[in-house]
């Protein structure tokens, strides 16, 4: 049934806990094609990491209820068995994580971890796997890979470690790469290198990439499309231009307004007031209403009563908000000034 390489339909993940059911992800849908990248943006606890782990089958299905559909190249991952998903992981889809130091096993050499990744999915002997690992390390820009391969993770710098993680993720040429905050733990200069590396490798391998981040700079630099998550749901999705130049959902606007900008030296940062909602008890109606400065513009207190649907505002740009599209654009322009409205520079 899939027109797209990856189709996520109505994905929900709920963890039953002693305090009640934690709805980590609710009804998330999106598509992704090869050689395309999607950024999922949101605050901590908005469900973005759980979404990605659910796609990869890393959520323990005994501990959580996963529903909906995830079609990867025609295979529904949600109804597949654990063993079926396991054989896809690392081969057809791979993931890199936020902190490369804690994500690499501290007691094994880089080479051993790479060889292990190769030999789960390919029937090659250790020598061939090692050659392949050295090649891959070279591809991700590690100098003297034949020596570095016998290093332990703690002997490498942060940027090198993340390159190793990328090498490990891409070593079986997966079609889908999920990068969960891949640059958060790195220096800014290294961040740019890593993003560039990911983009180069994407073009080389024709990979579909989902990048999860709260760093809007990374989003702007890296992705084609953006999904904004808030309180376990997607609240806005569109192209990068849609989100950066024509944001509509007040949460997206707030997110953009809270980014420090060099071209506006005066004034203070404009943070979003309040706290992200608890996933244990999401507010009735629109989940963003308690923090939304514009809810009184919606008649009948609708924001508190009814959850808005994710509706198309313009082609390819969907927004979950009760305000009219005109109101949303007006408020966004008021808040963000010149950045918004003119499309592109």
């Amino acid at each position, binding site marked *: 049934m899939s027109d797209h390489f990856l189709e996520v339909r109505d994905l929900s993940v709920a963890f039953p806990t002693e305090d009640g059911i934690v709805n980590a992800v609710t009804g998330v849908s999106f598509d992704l094609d090869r050689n395309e990248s999607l950024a999922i943006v949101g605050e901590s606890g908005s469900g973005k990491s759980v979404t990605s782990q659910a796609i990869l089958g890393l959520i323990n299905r005994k501990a959580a209820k996963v529903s909906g559909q995830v079609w990867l190249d025609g295979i529904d991952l949600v109804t597949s068995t654990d063993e079926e998903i*396991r054989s896809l*992981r690392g081969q057809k889809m791979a993931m890199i994580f936020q*902190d490369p130091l*804690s*994500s690499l096993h*501290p*007691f094994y*050499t880089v080479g051993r971890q790479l060889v292990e990744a190769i030999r789960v999915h390919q029937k090659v002997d250790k020598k061939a796997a090692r050659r392949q690992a050295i090649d891959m390390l070279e591809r991700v820009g590690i100098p003297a890979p034949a020596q570095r391969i016998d290093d332990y993770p*703690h002997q490498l710098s942060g940027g090198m470690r993340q390159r190793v993680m990328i090498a*490990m993720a891409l070593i079986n040429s997966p079609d889908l790469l999920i990068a969960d905050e891949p640059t958060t733990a790195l220096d800014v200069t290294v961040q740019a290198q890593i993003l560039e590396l990911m983009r180069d490798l994407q073009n080389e391998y024709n990979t579909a990439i989902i990048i999860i981040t709260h760093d809007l700079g990374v989003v702007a630099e890296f992705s084609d499309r953006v999904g904004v998550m808030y309180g376990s749901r997607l609240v806005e999705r569109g192209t990068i231009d849609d989100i950066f130049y024509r944001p509509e959902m007040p949460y997206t606007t707030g997110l953009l307004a809270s980014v420090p900008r060099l071209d506006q030296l005066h004034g203070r940062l404009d943070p979003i007031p309040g706290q992200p909602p608890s996933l244990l008890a999401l507010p009735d109606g629109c989940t963003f209403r308690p923090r939304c400065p514009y809810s009184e513009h919606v008649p009948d207190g609708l924001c508190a009563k009814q959850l808005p649907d994710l509706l198309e505002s313009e082609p390819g740009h969907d927004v979950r908000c009760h305000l009219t599209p005109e109101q949303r654009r007006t408020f966004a322009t008021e808040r963000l000034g010149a950045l918004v409205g003119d499309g592109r520079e």
Partner: protein
Amino acid sequence: MVIMLFLLSIVTFGMYAVLPSDPAALTCGKSCSPQVIEANRIRLGLDKPLVEQYTTFVSAIFVGRTYGSGSQTFECPAPCFGYSFNRGEDVKTLVMEALPPTVAVVVGAFIIWMVVGIVLGVIAALKRGKWQDRFAMGFALIGYSFPSFFIGYVLLYFLVFRFQLLPFPRYEPFTEDPVAWFNGLLLAWVTLAMLFAAYYVRLTRNQMLETLGDDFIRTARAKGLPERTVIYRHGLRAGLTPIVTSAGLDIGILLGGSIIVETIFGIPGLGRLALSSVLDSDLPVVIAIVLIAAVFIIVANLVVDILYAVIDPRVRLA
């Protein structure tokens, strides 16, 4: 390490000075004339100042010494740990005789408790909250709460007297009769292992639960590794460090003698020797055992440190 042993030898040797009993008086029975006591005092060098006694004691370990003078001398070749007044025997001989049974008890128990402890601990961690976990934790609680003499006697009562599944344990040297040796030690192994396995079950369980939540475990799963590999090669390996630490130190401590278990099951090991020597104020033996126990603990510490570097490459020096 040498400094530690040096200090320790001074402290233990100080017992001579501090204890109220007169070692020379212990050399002969109750009906002993003052002349004989005095003669023995001189013969054993106990008439000398304490510092000189100590230096003689230490040098004897390296070069041996000769007790007495004239016709009534006897040699104590190096390494000489002194002479037991009560038993009329070389301390070294006594200790060397007592060491093999203790090593047998400790090593056997060690193997059992490590296997049981780690296996149950891993199972408990993987089946957290299920009956397997409860069973393992219940077992640990029993091993934890009951003293070894209780467990030992319960086993003895049920297995030997009540159901007669095993012969009454009696220590036989391995070289003479391996089957009897095994039978004689089995209950001691089980008792000691129960006691320690309990701790290792909990330790392993906690370690596993902790490491299985680590980021690199998620990476291992993301690579598509089979769950078995994830748990053992990645999880257990990472959680091994504290288990190895405890194991090394425990075995070091126990090699100094496990008094209770050896006493219950009649094993002529260091623990029993230590106990009887303390009760008899047989000071040279006590001092020797304390020193040997200390050496075991210090060596165990050293081995643990070396093992650290083997397990964890971050500890290795560049």
